[in-house]
């Protein structure tokens, strides 16, 4: 019962991220919760959304019955293209990513460490089918790497850790973490909390976080 009205919903988290993306930004959104962010870009801002499979200018989801399965996103879901959009091949798409042309990427995560290491592609379990997609390229090439994720796993295990135990996607690549409980910047001094969710105090947040937090 004590979880009710504590923390942010996925939609609220997506709104917080969307509010932090300036007008004119080029943004790549990962699969899952990050996809929601496109729905919450504030009025009056133009943000160009990139999808790794070859489109700059992702639009809203298509109306039911109008899906085109040759027009999909990285999660292989049907999308639309905005006016002014353009298509390109994979080497160009990843030149945008790897060449430092994109301003933001927002990704999900299994774990983030206190120095910004990211683990989001494999649990390392022998039964896990390894699959990496574009995650390792995005974290190396995009100017700002934001993570959006639940603060802990479903069983309460902290996902913000001193050192990642899962296989890494990249070393010291994350600059900001949005969770259901807080927004945290990765700084040279350590993890700095810049906003607490409703109903969350410093002690509660620290107790749910393995790494040390700065308030």
């Amino acid at each position, binding site marked *: 019962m004590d979880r009710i009205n504590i923390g942010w919903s996925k939609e609220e988290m997506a709104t917080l991220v969307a509010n932090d993306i300036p007008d004119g930004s080029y943004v790549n959104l990962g699969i899952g919760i990050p996809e929601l962010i496109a729905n919450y870009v504030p009025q009056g801002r133009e943000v160009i959304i990139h*999808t790794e499979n*070859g489109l700059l200018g992702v639009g809203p989801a298509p109306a039911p019955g109008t899906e085109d399965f*040759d*027009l999909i996103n990285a999660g292989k879901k049907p999308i639309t293209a905005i006016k002014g959009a353009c*298509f390109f091949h994979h*080497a160009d798409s*990843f030149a945008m990513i790897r060449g430092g042309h994109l301003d933001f990427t927002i990704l999900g995560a299994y774990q983030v460490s206190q120095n910004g290491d990211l683990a989001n592609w494999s649990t390392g379990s022998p039964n896990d*089918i390894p*699959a*990496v997609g574009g995650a390792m390229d995005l974290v190396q090439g995009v100017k700002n790497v934001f993570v959006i994720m639940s603060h802990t796993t479903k069983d309460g295990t902290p996902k913000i850790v001193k050192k990642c135990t899962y296989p890494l996607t990249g070393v010291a690549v994350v600059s900001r973490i949005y969770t259901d409980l807080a927004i945290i910047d990765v700084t040279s001094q350590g993890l700095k909390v810049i906003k607490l969710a409703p109903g969350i105090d410093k002690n509660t947040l620290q107790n749910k976080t393995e790494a040390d937090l700065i308030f």
Partner: protein
Amino acid sequence: MINKVFKTPKEAIADIFDGATIMIGGFGEAGSPIELIHALIDQGAKNLTIISNNAGSGHVGLAALLEHKRVKKIICSYPKTAFSEVFPDLYCNGEIELELVPQGTLAERIRCGGAGIPAFYTPTSVGTPLAEGKEIREIDGKFYVLEYALKADFSLVKAYQGDRYGNLIYYKTGRNFGPIMCMAAKVTIAQVNKIVEVGELDPEIIVTPNIFVQRVVEVANPLHEHVLVSQNKKYPWTE
């Protein structure tokens, strides 16, 4: 007279040999040349090495090629997809070799293969398990991993329109790996929804220049993988 047009997928892929390395275009089903893959299943070539971003879904197209045990190794970035059943089984049973490559590194390895560049350094995967055993070099204070180019005996791609010279244009996000795979194979075979007369495609908008394409075959109404998967179809068709 130059005429790269073949009448059927069967004729276009007839000389693919056992042990060949084949690039197959597509990101999921978008751009996947499903009719060429089905013709390859019928033709029977085996011990293949496949280079493709994914490993297919359901029991059609690339997944069916795997299911018929024609593939010894797959080089790809994301072998699990919704409805991918075949690859996980083969992989867990040790019946297929996987070389997992970050997607951008995969694209660049293919591009370099087509551009005569044997290898390159990239920061992607540095510090991760995918860089283990590879040469690392420090350049201007940052670390990079050496990655080698990929080439193939054949590329199978899907485009939207082509002409008898082999010029191609694509359709929406179905373009993905097609243009770079056309560059990286000795023999590129493109299935297109429509073959048009030479000169009909505006030179300003041609995406793949004809020099990169050896064969073109028209498949007017290509199958949709998601429809076949939702109907639980298996290739070869049973009825």
